């Protein structure tokens, strides 16, 4: 069963829609209902984000919960700067949690060179979202990480270098490799 995050409504008992600021305020006053609403509002995109970084669903689920615990712990430090600021802030926490998990499990976090890449065949001939995600999943961890951070989550090479403890040029090079691998895969399946 797939649920849509957009279908969530911010309503607490009073049945009136709740704006984000009010929701944050209630979360800060330890209202379990408000905290649950906040969780429900962001659980879907954050679950997808964790899967994108970690691939393994069980690990991603675990990291997501750790991330939300940090969100509730640190919410008092959050500065509201417009409608999307909370989402961006939670996203940053989740990305950090994913990277921390990858750092803990060093064996998963290996930068590989071109000759080590093995890509399984993707059978479908049409370009669907699942196929695109499968393509990203097929990238080696180092490439995938940098591509996720730069192209999807909007981090700069400088930030990536800091987060992954690599040089900016290594980040650029990983991105170039990731892009050329993705293009190659797209061409291979007749999508470009």
């Amino acid at each position, binding site marked *: 069963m797939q*649920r*849509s995050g957009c279908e969530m409504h911010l309503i607490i008992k009073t049945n009136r829609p709740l704006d984000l600021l009010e929701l944050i305020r209630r979360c800060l006053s330890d209202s379990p209902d408000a905290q649950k609403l906040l969780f*429900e509002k962001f659980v879907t995109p954050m679950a*997808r984000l964790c899967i994108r970084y970690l691939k393994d669903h069980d690990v991603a689920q675990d990291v997501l919960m750790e991330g939300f615990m940090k969100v509730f712990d640190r919410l008092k430090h959050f500065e509201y700067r417009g409608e999307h600021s909370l989402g961006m802030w939670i996203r940053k926490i989740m990305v950090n949690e994913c990277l921390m998990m990858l750092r803990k499990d060093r064996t998963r976090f290996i930068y590989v060179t071109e000759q080590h890449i093995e890509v399984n065949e993707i059978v479908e001939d049409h370009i669907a979202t699942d196929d*695109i995600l499968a393509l990203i999943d097929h990238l080696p961890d180092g490439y995938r990480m940098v591509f996720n951070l*730069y192209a999807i989550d909007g981090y700069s090479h400088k930030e990536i270098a800091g987060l992954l403890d690599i040089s900016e040029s290594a980040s650029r090079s990983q991105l170039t490799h990731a892009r050329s691998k993705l293009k190659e895969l797209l061409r291979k399946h007749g999508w470009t």
Partner: protein
Amino acid sequence: MNDDSLDKLIRDKVREHENLYPDRWSAPDILWRSLNERRDRRQAKRRKLLWQVAAAILIVMMVGYTFFLDNGPGISIKHDLSPAALSVKEQDAIDFIARYCAGKTISCNTPDVLELRGDLERSFRKLEEIDDQLKIYGNDAVLIRAKARIESHQARLIKTIVQIL
């Protein structure tokens, strides 16, 4: 396809996908419950740790207070920071030894007296060192005790030398 259009294509697809809850995952309600259980466990752990820290602080304070009581309430260790202050009697005795031995008398050059005088000189040097350290470290209890020990040893040495002479 250039880099920007590739990034945009993938970014758009990913964003589109972010509205779909992963079907392999437990329902959000279940996740929420397990998240709360985890938070409760962590809070219990934190509380336990806080109690342990509080208990440790209490023990340290009790030990400190007991130590303070052992030294006697209101009594603090003090010492004279000026170089080894000898009593008038001891100073007189030292002057006497110096005058007596300046004449190179036989009794002054016996091995026993020579050894005792050597000890006395060493004890003065040691006292000077301790005084220097006290100036640096302040009223350190160990240094003060060491100084008191040396001073009493010095008094015994002076008495013995005078008796022999």
